[in-house]
C-alpha cells in the first residue's frame, strides 16, 4: 500500500515538474478561482442561500456531495449561475472549471457504477408481479390490488432508488400468491363449457322489471315479441347473476351479443361491462356501434372470475324529440327516445380444451388426474401418483422454480423447497395442499420478486430477464430462456432480433400501456371527472377510445419506426367512429380503432391534440394553462420548471363566465416574481386552451345555464346544461419571443425542440428499462445515441434498439 502511494506521488511530482500545464487538475487550481470570484458572495458561510461552498464536501465519491456538485455543474453550464447582474467569470475560468468538474464527476460516477453497479437491486412493481404470475401460471385475475400502491416519487415505479417494502407488501404478496394458486389449480367438477344463453327474454327477473311501474324503479325496459328493449346504460336489470349466469370458475369466456338500435337517430353503442362484489364501479370491456336498424352479432373473449358478473349496457342514447327521458316517459313501450334491442346473449366457456384445465396439468408435471369419489374438499379430481409424493413434489418444484426465478436453481435450493411440503405429506395431508406450500413460497421469494445481481456486465440470464421485463413486463419466454442458456443472447444480432420478435408479440401492449400510463400520466385519467351536465358527452365509451388513440399511436410509431417528431405533429392519428365524431372528423365508421389520415388544416395530430392528454391535464371541469404548460415542459420536453416559492397560492378557476382563465393569469405576466418562471410555463398551456377538459376543440368556453339539476343517477348523460360563453384566447408568446395563435402555430414552434424531446424519450426509456434514472456518467451514452439516430429523425424503434444495445442496459 505504502509503496504504491509513494510511487503515485513520485509520478505526480515528475509530471508536475516536467510541465506545469500537464499537472493533474485539482480543485484548487481549476475551480476555486471561480468560486472566489463569482459564487462565494452569495454562497458563503453567512449567506442566505441553501448552498454554502465553505462547508460543501469535495469528496465526489460521497453520494450527497456528488448530487450537489452535479447540480452546480448543470447550473453553471446552462448559464443560470452566476445570475445576470453578478460578477461573471471570464470564459477561460468558466470553461476550465466546467471541464474539471465534468471529468471529476464522470470518473466518480463511473467508479461507483463499476463497484456497486448503476442499478441497485430492485423489486418488481405491482403490475410486473401480476403479469409474472399470469404468465407463469396461465391465469388472468386481478392480483395487483392486493399490494399497496407504489410510492409517488416523481419517477417510474420500477426505479429502484424510490421503491419501498413493508410487511403490508409481504402480507399482500402472500395473499396474492394464494389467490393465484386458487385460480391455477382447478379441480372442481367439470363446468358446463358449451354455449348457453343468458336468456333475458324469458328471465323472471327481467319480467319483474318490465311489469313494475316507473315510480317503483321499473319501466325502463319493455319487451317486443322477441327482444328486450332498454333505454339506459348500466341498467342493473341486466346483471347476469340475476339472469342465470355467474362464471362457474375463473377462466376465459366468449360472450356473444345480438342486438340492434331501437328508434335510432344517431349512432348508438352497445357495450359489455363487468362488475364484481369487491369493486363498486363497473368496467367496460367491449363496445360496439349499432347503426341503422340491422341486428349485429358481436363477440368478445374475456377473463372472468367466479365473483364477477357482466351486463349488457346501452350508451350514447339520445332522449325523445320532445326532450323527455325514459324516467318521465309514460311507458317504455311508447317512449320515443333511442334505445337498444337485445335479441340474444350467449356465453361459452371456460374456454378449455381439457378438464382439469391445461394450466393445472402444467403446474403438476408427471401427475395424472382421475375423478374423485371423495367430494369433501370441493374437489372432483384427485391425483394419481406413480412415485412417492415427495418425488412428485420435487418434480413439480424443479419445473417451475427456474422459470419463476429466471435463473438456474441449485439442488440444495430445490431440497429446501421440497422440505416445506414434507411435514404436511408426512402428516398424510392432501397432496395438492402440501405441494401448494413450496409453490406459494416460490411465488413470494426474492428470486421472483427482485432483479438483482453483481455489478458489471449482465450475464445472459440476467439480460433475458431485463429485456423481458422491459418489453413484456414479465418473465422471459422459452425462446429467450433457451438463447440465454446457450449464452447466445448477448450476441448483438441475436439480441436485436429478439427485440423485434418481442415487439411483434401482443405482450408488448403491456409495455406501451404501462410506459405511457406513467410517462404521460394516462393512469390519472380518472383522477377527476368533468361535470356531467357541462360535458355530457364524456362517458366510458369515449374514455376508452381516448386512451386507445394514444396507445395505438405510440405503438404505431414503434411499429413503423417513425420519428419522435410525430409526438409533436403528425398527419395521422388513430380513431374509431366515436372519437372521430368527438373530433368532428367525418367518414370513420365502426368501433375499431384505425389509422386515419388527417386533413392538413386539422388541429389534431401529435400528442398535445389527443383528447386523453387534454383530459389528464385538465382540472375536473376546468382547464388551466399552468397545469398544461407544466405537462409540456415536464413530460414532453423533460425540462421541469422550478417550484413556486412557498406561500404562493394557486390560481382561481372561474366558470361564472365573467372572466376567462387568461385574465386570471394576468399577474403571471405582470409580476416579476411570477413572470420569471411563468413566461416559460404558461405559453404551451395557452396554446392548449383550445381543447376543453375532454378534448373537444373549442373557440368559446362552455358556461352553465344554471338549469335545475336533478340528482338522480343515470339521468345525467341525457341532460345538457351549457351555453357558449366568452371566446378562448389561444394566442401567446413563448419565452424566446415566438408569437403563436393556436395549437397549430405552437406545434410548429415545438417541432424545433425535436432533439430535446428525443433526449427526454430516450431518458425515459432508459429509466423504465433499467430501473435507474440517467446518471452523470450516462450522459455521454445518451448523446451518442442521439447522434446516431439524428439523421433518421430519432425514430422510436431505433431508440429502443439503441437502449438495449447500450452499455447502460447491458450492465448492472
Amino acid at each position, binding site marked *: 500500500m505504502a509503496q504504491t502511494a509513494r510511487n503515485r506521488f513520485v509520478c505526480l511530482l515528475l509530471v508536475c515538474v516536467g510541465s506545469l500545464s500537464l499537472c493533474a487538475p485539482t480543485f484548487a487550481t481549476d475551480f476555486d478561482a471561480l468560486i472566489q470570484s463569482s459564487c462565494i458572495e452569495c454562497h458563503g458561510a453567512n449567506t442566505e442561500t441553501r448552498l454554502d461552498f465553505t462547508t460543501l464536501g469535495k469528496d465526489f465519491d460521497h453520494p450527497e456531495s456528488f448530487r450537489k456538485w452535479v447540480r452546480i455543474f448543470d447550473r453553471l453550464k446552462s448559464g443560470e449561475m452566476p445570475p445576470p447582474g453578478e460578477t461573471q467569470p471570464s470564459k477561460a475560468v468558466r470553461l476550465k472549471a466546467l471541464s474539471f468538474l465534468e471529468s471529476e464527476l464522470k470518473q466518480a460516477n463511473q467508479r461507483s457504477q463499476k*463497484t*456497486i*453497479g448503476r442499478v*441497485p*437491486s430492485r*423489486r418488481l412493481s405491482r403490475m410486473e408481479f401480476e403479469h409474472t404470475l399470469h404468465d407463469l401460471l396461465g391465469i388472468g385475475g386481478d392480483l395487483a390490488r392486493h399490494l*399497496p*400502491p407504489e*410510492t*409517488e*416519487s*416523481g*419517477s417510474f415505479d420500477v426505479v429502484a*432508488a*424510490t421503491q*419501498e*417494502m*413493508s*410487511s*403490508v*407488501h*409481504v*402480507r399482500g404478496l*402472500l395473499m396474492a400468491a*394464494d389467490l393465484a394458486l386458487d385460480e391455477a389449480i382447478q379441480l372442481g367438477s367439470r363446468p358446463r363449457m358449451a354455449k348457453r344463453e343468458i336468456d333475458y327474454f324469458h328471465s323472471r327477473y327481467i319480467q319483474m322489471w318490465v311489469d313494475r311501474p316507473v315510480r317503483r324503479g321499473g319501466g325502463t325496459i319493455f319487451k317486443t315479441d322477441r327482444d328486450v328493449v332498454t333505454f339506459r346504460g348500466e341498467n342493473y336489470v341486466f346483471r347476469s347473476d340475476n339472469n342465470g349466469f355467474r362464471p362457474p370458475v375463473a377462466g376465459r369466456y366468449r360472450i356473444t351479443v345480438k342486438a340492434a338500435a331501437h328508434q335510432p337517430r344517431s349512432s348508438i353503442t352497445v357495450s359489455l361491462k363487468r362488475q364484481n362484489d369487491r369493486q*363498486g364501479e363497473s368496467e367496460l370491456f367491449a363496445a360496439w356501434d349499432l347503426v341503422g336498424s340491422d341486428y349485429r352479432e358481436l363477440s368478445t373473449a374475456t377473463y372472468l372470475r367466479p365473483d364477477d358478473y357482466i351486463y349488457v349496457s346501452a350508451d350514447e342514447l339520445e332522449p325523445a324529440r320532445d326532450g323527455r327521458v325514459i324516467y318521465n316517459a309514460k311507458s317504455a313501450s311508447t317512449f320515443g327516445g333511442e334505445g337498444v334491442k337485445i335479441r340474444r346473449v350467449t356465453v361459452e366457456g371456460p374456454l378449455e380444451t381439457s378438464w382439469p384445465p391445461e394450466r393445472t396439468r402444467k403446474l403438476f408435471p408427471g401427475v395424472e388426474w382421475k375423478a374423485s369419489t371423495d367430494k369433501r374438499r370441493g374437489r372432483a379430481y384427485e391425483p394419481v401418483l406413480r412415485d412417492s409424493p415427495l418425488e412428485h413434489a420435487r418434480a413439480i418444484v424443479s419445473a417451475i422454480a427456474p422459470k419463476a426465478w429466471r435463473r438456474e436453481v441449485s439442488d440444495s*435450493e430445490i431440497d*429446501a423447497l421440497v422440505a*416445506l411440503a414434507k411435514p404436511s405429506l408426512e402428516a398424510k395431508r392432501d397432496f395438492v395442499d402440501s405441494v*401448494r*406450500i413450496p409453490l406459494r413460497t416460490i411465488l*413470494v*421469494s*426474492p428470486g421472483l420478486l*427482485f432483479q*438483482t445481481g*453483481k455489478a458489471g456486465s449482465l450475464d445472459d440470464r440476467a439480460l433475458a430477464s431485463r429485456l423481458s421485463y422491459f418489453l413484456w413486463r414479465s418473465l422471459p419466454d422459452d425462446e429467450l430462456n433457451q438463447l440465454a442458456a446457450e449464452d447466445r443472447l448477448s450476441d448483438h444480432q441475436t439480441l436485436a432480433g429478439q427485440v423485434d420478435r418481442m415487439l411483434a408479440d401482443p405482450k408488448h401492449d403491456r409495455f406501451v400501456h404501462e410506459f405511457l400510463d406513467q410517462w404521460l400520466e394516462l393512469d390519472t385519467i380518472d*383522477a*377527476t*371527472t368533468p*361535470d*356531467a351536465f357541462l360535458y355530457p358527452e364524456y362517458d366510458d365509451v369515449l374514455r376508452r377510445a381516448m386512451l386507445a388513440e394514444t396507445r395505438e399511436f405510440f405503438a404505431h410509431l414503434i411499429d413503423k419506426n417513425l420519428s419522435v417528431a410525430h409526438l409533436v405533429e403528425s398527419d395521422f392519428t388513430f380513431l374509431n367512429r366515436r372519437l372521430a365524431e368527438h373530433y368532428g372528423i367525418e367518414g370513420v365508421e365502426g368501433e375499431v380503432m384505425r389509422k386515419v389520415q388527417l386533413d392538413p388544416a386539422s388541429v389534431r395530430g401529435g400528442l398535445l391534440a389527443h383528447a386523453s392528454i387534454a383530459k389528464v391535464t385538465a*382540472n*375536473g*371541469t376546468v382547464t388551466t394553462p399552468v397545469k398544461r404548460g407544466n405537462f409540456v415542459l415536464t413530460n414532453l420536453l423533460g425540462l421541469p420548471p422550478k*417550484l*413556486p416559492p*412557498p*406561500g404562493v*397560492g*394557486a390560481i*382561481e*378557476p*372561474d*366558470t*361564472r363566465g365573467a372572466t376567462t382563465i387568461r385574465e386570471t393569469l394576468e399577474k403571471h405576466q405582470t409580476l416579476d416574481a411570477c413572470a420569471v418562471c411563468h413566461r416559460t410555463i404558461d405559453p404551451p398551456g395557452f396554446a392548449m386552451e383550445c381543447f376543453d377538459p375532454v378534448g373537444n376543440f373549442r373557440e368559446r368556453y362552455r358556461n*352553465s345555464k344554471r338549469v335545475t*339539476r336533478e*340528482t338522480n*343517477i343515470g339521468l345525467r348523460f341525457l341532460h345538457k346544461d351549457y351555453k357558449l360563453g366568452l371566446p378562448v384566447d389561444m394566442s401567446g408568446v413563448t419565452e424566446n419571443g415566438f408569437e403563436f395563435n393556436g395549437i397549430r402555430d405552437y406545434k410548429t414552434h415545438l417541432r424545433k425542440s425535436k432533439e430535446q424531446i428525443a433526449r427526454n424519450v430516450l431518458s425515459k426509456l432508459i429509466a423504465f428499462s433499467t430501473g435507474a434514472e440517467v446518471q452523470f456518467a450516462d450522459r455521454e451514452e445518451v448523446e451518442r445515441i442521439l447522434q446516431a439516430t439524428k439523421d433518421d429523425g430519432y425514430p422510436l424503434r431505433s431508440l429502443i434498439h439503441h437502449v438495449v444495445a447500450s452499455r447502460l442496459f447491458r450492465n448492472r
Partner: protein
Amino acid sequence: MHTPISRRAVLKASGIAISLPFLESMNSAMGREPVAPPKRLVLVCNTLGLHPPSLFPKTAGSEYESTGYLDLLKKHRNDFTLFSGLSHPDQNGKQPHDTEMTWLTAARNPGLGGFKNSISIDQFAARHLGNATRFPSIVLSSNTQKSQSYTSNGVMLPAQHRPSTVFAKLFLDDSPREQRRQRQRLAEGRSILDSVAEQTQTLRRQTGSHDRRQLEEYFTAIRAAEAELAETGAWLDRPKPRVDEKPPRDIADSADLIGRTRSLMNLIPLMLQTDSTRIVTVVIQDHLVVPRIQGVTAEHHNLSHHGQDPQKIEQLKIIETEIVKCFADFLSRLAQPSEADGRLLDQTSVLFGSNLGNANAHDPSNLPIILAGGGYDHGRHVAYDKRNNIPLCNLFVSLLSKMGIETPSFATSTGKLTW
C-alpha cells in the same frame, strides 16, 4: 407498551353476547375491581379543507363567538377545542393536493423528486400499543383505498371503504371450516416466510454491500409480517365480540359522500367499545364527483376552488355542513354514557380537520384543527400566530402523551403543545 386492561379479560368477556355498553358488562361479568379504560385515538380528515370564514371565530379564548360550522357543534362546545395557526412546515409538493399524504406524517415536500414518506402518528401509536387489541389500528376511507396512514418506511396502508367488510372483520365469526382453513394458511404462511427470509439472507450475502437496501428492507418486512401473522393466529382462536347492530349495507354510489362517510363512522364507537382497536383513521374524500346532496350541482373539488363566487361558496358550505354534521353526530354517539366510569368520548382523543388550510388556494397553512374528547380541558378557541404557525406535530406529541406514549418529538415537532 402495556395497557391497564388485560387482554384476557376482554377476550373472555367478548365471548358473551352482550349489548353495549361493553366494558361495563365486562367489569361486572368478571366480578372484580373495574380496570381503567384504555385511551383511544381517532383521526378524521376532510381532504378539501373547511371554508375558513365559516369555521374560525374572530375571537379566541373560551368566550369565542360561534360561527356557522361551530353552531353545528354547539351541543359539544365544552367537549372540543378549536385550534387555529397550526400547520406542517415545508409542504410545497409536486401536486397541490399531495399534502393529503403528509397530514399525519409531516414529511416535507410531498411527491417531489425522491420523496419518501415517514411514519404517520396513528401507526406510531399503533406500534407502541402493539397487539393489545385484535386490530392494532383500523384505517378507513369514504371512497377509495387511499389512506393517510404510513409505515415507518413510507408505505401507505390500504384503507377499507366498505362498511360491510369492516363489520364482518370485526364482529362476524367465520364458519368453522373457514376458520380451519385460515389457521392452516397461517401456519403455512409462517413456514413460507421462514423459508423466504432465509433465501433473502443468502441473496444479501451474495450481493454487494452497497446494494442491500431493498433486500434488507424485504428481510425486515418478512420478520414484521411473521410477527403479525403470529398475532393474527393468536386472535383466531378467540371469538369476536358480538354487537347488537345489524351489519351495514354498502352504498355503491360513490357520489353519496355523506352516506358513505356516515356508515363508516357509525362503526367506530362499536370498534372502540368492544376494544377491537384503539386507533382509527378516517379520510373523507369523494372521487371528484358531484356529491349527492340537495342543492349541490358541482364537484366538491371544483367548489373548493370557489374563487369567492358566492354561489359556489354557498354550495361548498352545504357539503361541508353535512360533513361537520357527521362529525357532530359521531361525537354525540361517543358522548353517550357507556364505559364503567363515564363516556367513551373522555377516553378518546378525536382529531378532526384537514390537510388544507384554504383549499381555494391550496394553502397548507392555518389548518382547521378540532380536538374533541380525550379528557382535555376544552371549550376554547386556541389561536396561534397566523403568519408564524406552530407545528401541528406539537399537538401530535400531546396526543401521543395522552395515549401513554411519551416521545420527546414527532416528525417536525418543536415541543409539546399545551394550552
